[in-house]
């Protein structure tokens, strides 16, 4: 890709997010969100939206310096405040069935440095239920994609010269988004088709439990009777297919939050709100994480998971095979969008109601948090256990067995 101009590289990434990711339809309003430093990619995305027939592109920039001004100088009532029209916007998105494209990448941690952690912690806009409704009722076709930036490149490749770090990050993003293929969409269609078929075969077994075994790991994750693995794309209520994450390499479901037992060792470093955890080890008993240890940073994860009852229970289990280009790179991106697709992972916190049905909807884990961490690797075996106790190999050496 290095022979392409930067504009052309942005155009290819933008085209993938607009056409394949969100699948923007003629006449749609599209909300494009990103950090104030993502403007070049935002412009490219907006241009592709209009070429795809969008009626309006709504820019939704966030600027951490404005947040800093609020934390530093705002009165108490300004912390966590939301305008009435921010709800109006979300209602419009649901009623008019917008497309939504969000760009994700590392931001400069120094912008918020030195601020009162208490005010910073409370400055979460009230959960905008209108947005949750738009997504959960599948009224919007949406995607989240990566936006390579100098700041992010510095976080991922801190020992390199800035230009070289950015060039490498771009190359890595292009690799994991399959933009190095002649026809990236065809490549994704094939990969996601394979993943959907694999998820279907896993679901056909109606496993009761998944068993992870490897160095430092011997963990059983119980599933709910209706837990269904989902992969690839999603579809709006009106039948517009879209891919919520680009890239995506996982088949995931929501487990039984009361039936997780054993020990697990994280296979990748984990970034929790700017703190990096290494050598993470967690012991579960009857669904609860009863011991959280790490070579560094364990106290941050202990504090986060103590936030509510569901914080120490699982909301997600996801399977990723060795074909994942993110896993193959071995790079830690400190960005969940990419890192969670590197390897099999579990998440402490909120589950996904659309992965289950019937009475199970009320049994999934509920929490304010959702923290993914990687537990898979080539030397971690994954085995499915059926209700009658039969053991079926699922992943061996990173390769699907079914």
């Amino acid at each position, binding site marked *: 890709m290095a022979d392409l101009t930067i504009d052309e590289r942005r155009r290819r990434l933008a085209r993938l997010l607009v056409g394949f990711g969100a699948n923007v339809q*003629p*006449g749609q*309003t599209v909300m494009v969100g990103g950090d*104030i430093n993502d*403007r070049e990619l*935002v*412009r490219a995305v*907006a*241009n592709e939206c*209009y*070429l795809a*027939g*969008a*009626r*309006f*592109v*709504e*820019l939704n*920039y966030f*600027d951490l*310096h*404005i947040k800093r*001004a*609020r934390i*530093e*100088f*705002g*009165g108490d*009532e*300004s912390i966590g*405040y939301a*305008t*009435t*029209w921010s709800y*109006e*916007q979300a*209602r*419009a998105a649901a009623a*008019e069935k917008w497309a939504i494209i969000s760009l994700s990448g590392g931001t400069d941690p120094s912008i918020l440095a030195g601020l009162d952690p208490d005010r910073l912690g409370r400055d979460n806009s009230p959960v905008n239920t209108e947005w949750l409704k738009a997504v959960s009722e599948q009224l919007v076709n949406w995607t989240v994609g990566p936006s390579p930036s100098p700041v992010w490149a510095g976080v991922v490749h801190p020992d390199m010269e800035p230009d070289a770090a950015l060039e490498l990050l771009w190359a890595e993003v292009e690799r994991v988004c399959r933009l190095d293929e002649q026809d990236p969409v065809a490549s994704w269609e094939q990969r996601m088709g394979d993943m959907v078929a694999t998820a279907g075969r896993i679901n056909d077994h109606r496993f009761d439990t998944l068993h992870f075994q490897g160095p430092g790991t011997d963990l059983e994750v119980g599933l709910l009777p209706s837990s269904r693995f989902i992969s690839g794309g999603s579809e709006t209520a009106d039948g517009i297919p879209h891919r919520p994450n680009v890239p995506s390499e996982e088949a995931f479901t929501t487990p039984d939050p009361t039936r997780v037992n054993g020990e697990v060792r994280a296979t990748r470093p984990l970034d929790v709100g700017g703190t990096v955890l290494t050598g993470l080890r967690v012991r579960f008993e009857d669904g609860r994480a009863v011991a959280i240890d790490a070579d560094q940073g364990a106290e941050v994860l202990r504090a986060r998971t103590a936030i509510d009852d569901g914080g120490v229970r699982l909301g997600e289990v996801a399977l990723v095979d060795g074909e994942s280009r993110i896993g193959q790179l071995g790079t830690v991106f400190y960005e969940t969008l990419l890192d969670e697709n590197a390897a099999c992972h579990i998440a402490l916190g909120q589950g996904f109601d659309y992965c289950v049905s019937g009475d199970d909807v009320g049994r999934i884990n509920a929490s304010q948090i959702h923290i993914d961490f990687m537990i898979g690797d080539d030397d971690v075996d994954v085995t499915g256990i059926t209700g009658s106790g039969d053991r079926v190999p699922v992943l061996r050496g990173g390769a699907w067995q079914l």
Partner: protein
Amino acid sequence: MDDLLTERLAELAVGFGANVQADQIVMVTAELGRESLARAVAAAAYRAGARYVDVTYSDAFVRRAKIENAGDDAIGYAPPWHVERMKQMGEQRVAVISLEAAIDPAATDGLDPIRLGADQSPVRQAYLRLVMERLINWCIIACPTPEWAARVHPDLPVDQAFELLSQEIARVCRLDEDDPVAAWQTRFDRLTEISERLGEHRFQAIHFSGDGTDLTVGLLPSAEWACATFTTADGISHHPNLPTEEVFTTPDPRRTDGVVRSTKPLNIEGTLVTGLTVRFEGGRAVAIDADGGADVLRGRASRDDGASRLGELALVDGEGRIGALDTVFYSTLIDENAASHIALGSGLGYLVKDEGSKQQVNSSSIHIDFMIGSPEIDVDGVHDDGTRVPVLRGGEWQI
């Protein structure tokens, strides 16, 4: 512009321009590239006790993408919630601070003038209503940017051009005074005095003559003269344009006659209209010609019935700091304060105190100012009996 000037400019916009009140919500609108001042304004507004500062960034290059590549249904469209937002902003009596600069010409060069002219958002009309009904305390303030500087000083390296423009804006915003607010207060006292005298004369028309211009603008008997100090319906005084040097009124949209030649280039969202001449008959602009860009102004002036009639008449004397710099800023906010000017489009209804006469004020979805004054243009007031009183000669007040 260094951090200190940026902060002084932000403090002027918040404390004197919009006059942000404790517990108000403040909307800040800025093009990309104006983040430094937007952030300084946000900080100043929070220091002034703002409840919340909502910063909205826009991007002229995304607009360009729309004009170039979008379908016809996209031109002039905005999601209806944008209008609803304006309504709620009025109900909640917010403060609004807009950062003004000339946009990068690369954002508009070569665009189809018809599509560009037709791309007028309905939100603009909703915003003008907030202004006319005096629901918001607001301020447009000049924001130096490198792109703007390159436009104003094309012969200088961009960093020197930016430094010079920053100094010029500091000068015209009176930031070089020890106490900029006190300096502004003195200037406003003088402009208030002039507008009161103009009002006492009860002229039936104002006549401009010289240098290719012979234009008579009829006045409404019940319309007042004012300078740019406003008070909201709730009594918050504010200064909507910084800098400002003008005294103005809203004229009779049926009684403008003659020919006027623009004395400075006019920038319509990035398209430069040069050498503009407009002929008026019975209040209507019946001929719009220019050396360049006439079609964009013609497009705007044909948007609705009121778009070809006048909504504003403003007089500027030579004491203003802008005219003295003799710089063309390619920005109406500043350039209109260098010289006397008129505006096509919506009028200023609040200047008409008599309810029965309010419907005589021009109504339109546009409001485009262009400069018609210079030291070479004589301005006279015309009484009902036809007698003439000199108002401006060589840029100096005569009344």
